[in-house]
């Protein structure tokens, strides 16, 4: 057992030694701490877009003009807090946060380090406005409000005729995400005006996706509206499989989900969302000032459709839609 013991001590010693090294960072290269709350293929696009935008503006990791540290809390909020604390105490020059809970956790922990948020709702919707109704001064980035959902949802009656009577649309929403619940409320209000019967059921974990989707499909819905939230992102393939089996087309408001098999969408593209945030981050790194930087709306919204899915459901998509 001697060698094992020695090995352990050596391992411990090296670990402690590297602990000290972690504190030092080379002074000239700006450091960005990128925070994600959970691993997800579609959400990851924001990070890729963010890095690409920085690269286009001359901040590339390959050329050592920027250092992007990446932390993913893998679904645990204890880890999320620690990741953010780690970046704050280094301190990094800029925090980049993807999805609501990361942005919120960062905003609540630092008032000095600039935060570039993406894939997050407006500060108002996140309830982080101060007494005067102002967003935190160190917060900028790219946000999304809800009205865009109107356009995505009103697509459905334009492209689809009901089998009988009123058009029935099913949707799921995640009670753990404010924007998902808000979106559902908004769609509910709108569906009355559009003459659509909306059946909305909560789905809070991707593990129940199959069952909940099946129960919706048993209510003979004409279409499925996949409101882009975390659960839909992670369980989309399950939802699509069940919908396909029942011949129910899926509509959404995010381009990435169209790529994964939804018929059509008018909405943000997560990659472009991250790219836009990356451009803002680059501006901050260049000027080192918050001047002119504030949370701004997503600029690139695309009308896209999935050729194979549209053909399968015999849906004729208007010409201003782009195939992906």
């Amino acid at each position, binding site marked *: *057992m001697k060698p094992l013991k020695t090995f352990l001590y050596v391992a411990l010693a090296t670990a402690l030694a590297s602990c000290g090294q972690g504190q030092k960072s080379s002074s000239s290269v700006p450091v960005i701490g990128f925070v994600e709350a959970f691993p997800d293929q579609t959400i990851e696009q924001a990070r890729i877009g963010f890095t690409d935008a920085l690269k286009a503006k001359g901040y590339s990791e390959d050329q050592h003009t920027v250092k992007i540290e990446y932390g993913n809390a*893998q679904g645990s909020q*204890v880890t999320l*807090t620690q990741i953010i604390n780690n970046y704050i105490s280094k301190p990094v020059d800029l925090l980049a946060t993807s999805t609501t809970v990361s942005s*919120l956790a960062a905003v609540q922990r630092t008032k000095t380090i600039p935060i570039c948020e993406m894939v997050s709702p407006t500060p108002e919707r996140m*309830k982080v406005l101060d007494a005067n109704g102002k967003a935190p001064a160190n917060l900028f980035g790219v946000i999304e409000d809800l009205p865009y959902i109107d356009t995505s949802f009103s697509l459905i009656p334009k492209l689809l005729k009901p089998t009988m009577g009123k058009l029935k649309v099913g949707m799921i929403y995640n*009670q*753990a995400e404010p924007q998902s619940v808000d979106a559902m409320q908004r769609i509910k209000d709108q569906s009355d005006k559009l003459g659509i019967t909306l059946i909305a059921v909560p789905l809070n974990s991707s593990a129940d996706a199959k069952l909940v989707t099946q129960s919706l499909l048993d209510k003979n819905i004409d279409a499925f509206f996949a409101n882009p939230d975390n659960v839909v992102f992670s369980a989309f393939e399950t939802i699509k499989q069940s919908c396909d089996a029942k011949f129910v087309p899926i509509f959404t408001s995010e381009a990435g989900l169209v790529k994964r098999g939804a018929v059509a969408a008018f909405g943000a593209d997560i990659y472009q969302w991250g790219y836009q945030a990356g451009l803002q981050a680059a501006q901050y790194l260049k000027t080192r000032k918050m001047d002119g930087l504030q949370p701004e709306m997503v600029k690139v919204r695309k009308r896209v459709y999935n050729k194979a899915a549209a053909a399968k459901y015999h849906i004729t998509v208007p010409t201003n839609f782009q195939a992906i």
Partner: protein
Amino acid sequence: MSFYLSALIMGLCLSMLALGIFISMKIFNIPDITTDGSYTLGGAVTAVMFMHQQNILLVLLAVAASGAIAGALTGLIHTKLKINALLAGILVMTALYSVNLIIMQRSNIPLTDASKLLFGLIHISKTDDLNTLFIVLLFVIIATIKIGYLLKTDFGVAMRATGNSESMVRALGVNTDRMKIIGLALANALTALSGFLVTQFQLFADISMGIGVVIVGLGSVIIAETVINWLRITSVWGSLALVLGGAVIFQFVLAFTLAIGIDANYLKIVTAAFVLLIVSLPRITQRGRAA
């Protein structure tokens, strides 16, 4: 070093939860799954009451009471309906998700005015984090002393003995069902207090904050038990102190893994490896001694 300071605070905030798990482990020999729910419950009650500008003492009492009710429910389901303790915990934890949503009315609530919170009450140090550390340390010490005295009373001894040998304790004329219900109420009140502390530290409560947190508590207790067995500690005070230490160590391991800049994909496996290293150290050195 301020990162390790915040990890220390986080560890102390979670040490209440570790104490809760420690107590439920003593009574049941299995961890109480209700923890995931009652931790969030503590956070939810804290956030909502602060949103309505309630007095901090009132918040503290409400948080402890709500956790205790949740724990007592698990205890009742387990003892009166004879449901397996694990399942009883899972059931209450699942139901608490809805309860928490109803309490919060939305999935997360940020706390906007920090001055009314626990950590804004007294200013011992000028630095924010150091001030937080002093207050949380004070809070944890007071709570631990209270729990320690409780565990040393006749009642506490009977409660601890229930986990060791239930039939023996019943033969001595102790109502073991009552012990279990009260013990679980106590454990979950402590867990809810963790939610209370963490919510004020991170300044928001979130419906998903409790997911997997039972693992954190369990990890801390196991680290502590390893040392307890290794050094053959029998005193209540020593055990409690080690449980607090275990919670801090668990957070330090996570902090350390983050600080050395491990690839995000390896985060959990490296954390697991470090914890394994810590709990297996006594075993390895012991065997080394024997050889």
